[in-house]
């Protein structure tokens, strides 16, 4: 799978950076849509991972916004 993605500074992200962006987005979407269905261990660990991946999004200039609604 080849990605092409630019950040908000119009800089190209590397393939591995793109993959992390995808992971973040998928995790955020999963927790938003299915967070209440997940068992405690899965939801809380998912949130902790999301909070860590938020730092990646922030560092890549992807404007991740806030996460309080999701619980992180």
């Amino acid at each position: 799978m080849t990605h092409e993605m630019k950040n908000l500074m119009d800089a190209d992200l590397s393939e591995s950076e793109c993959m992390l962006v995808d992971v973040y987005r998928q995790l955020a979407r999963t927790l938003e849509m299915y967070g209440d269905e997940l068992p405690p261990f899965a939801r809380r660990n998912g949130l902790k991972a999301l909070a860590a991946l938020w730092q990646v999004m922030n560092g890549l200039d992807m404007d991740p916004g806030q996460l309080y609604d999701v619980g992180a």
Partner: protein
Amino acid sequence: MTDSPYWNPRHETMARKDVEALQVRKLRNLVEWADSQVPWQAKRLRDAGVTADQIRSLDDLQRIPIMTRDDWMQGQVEEPPFGSNVAVPRESAIRYHMTSGTTGKTPIRVLDGMKDWEWIAEMWCYGLWGFGVRPRDVLFVAFGYSTFIGFWGLHYAGEKLGCLTLPGGAMATDQRVKQIVDMGATVVASTPTYALRMAQEARALGIDLAGSSVQRLILSGEPAGSIPATKKLIQEEGGARAGDTAGMTELGTIMIFECGEQPGGTHIIEDNYIEEVLDPESDRPVAHGEMGERVVTSFGRGFIPVMRYRTRDLVVKVPGMSCRCGRTWDLYEGGIRGRVDDMKLVRGTNVYPRAVEAIVREHPEIDEFQIHLYTAEGRRDEIEILVEIPDQEADAGGITARLEKELADAHEALRFGVKQVDLGTLPRFELKAKRLVDDRIVIGTEGERRAQA
């Protein structure tokens, strides 16, 4: 990339115009967030006629009202216990911290969500990585781990980096020194004052701290980490390179750090903050190279949006390119130079505690000192420096005489009394040192105190 000298290579070396573009975009987001989530901030912005969509350049920052500590405290009075500047319900918080309370004032109370707390550690990662700390390191944190935020973020940054992180809480100084040596710590984090205290304790225990495995000292909590003479003493006694950092409870973490090049200043983490330097009287920006007051805007902690917060810290900003490390982030030359309200007027002469410390620390024989202001004969301000000189062989008379002259020469011939006191007489500090005691009275009264030191 794992051998990169930068934690975030793209951001730390980006062109200045890109740094500014990034800051403008983040500022716009911050204004929008504060406006939508915090009624108190929304009113301030509305009164100033500021909306997010009007933020187009860094010049627009000037239109946002400056926030003071008094504003913060008033908010805590009106909406206890956390104040008016909270963007999210308390239930979303995972951490509560507060200021150290060394000034005796009511503490500032802060809350953080999960991603805020990760961000707090992230800012420390910039500092640790930038000073050369790596996953192979053993990091000892000489800190009390209380509700004071202190080195909490550094601890989590150490874990994030992959260091073996040793929490040095609830220990006496001798226990800390022994553990540093026994565990082979390669990095030690503490206040500058406490770094000297540990070196002193090591000597008393017959431990050669300078010959231990410690290679780096991470300093924070006091301006002394960038005073050249103090830093030199810390490095000599600790046998390690010392890197200065500075942070604030109001931000939750550090905003500046010294890189491995040790340029005599601290880089501003400019992808996560805007640091303005203003004339404290006029609030107008001062030029690079001129001293002014730090006013900070933070993009990290969403729980408590900080926009143009007046810090009272005195700094001198210089361009990042003056450092050889390759970062484009501006520097505070000499770190935090002192506080706007630190200055004492003694018989018409300005006395800054940091400047006094810089001179006292040129005399390594002096172990501890205190600046004492008092009123003589009920009508004359006096200043004396109390010093402890542990080495019985040292020429104490010569040292105090030289110090008197050096202090006078640096202060328009103001007379300083320098007095040697018995060992162990002066207080020792683990957190922020308080070495100035102002016992002056209001002249003409029966002893009404003029100031609380």
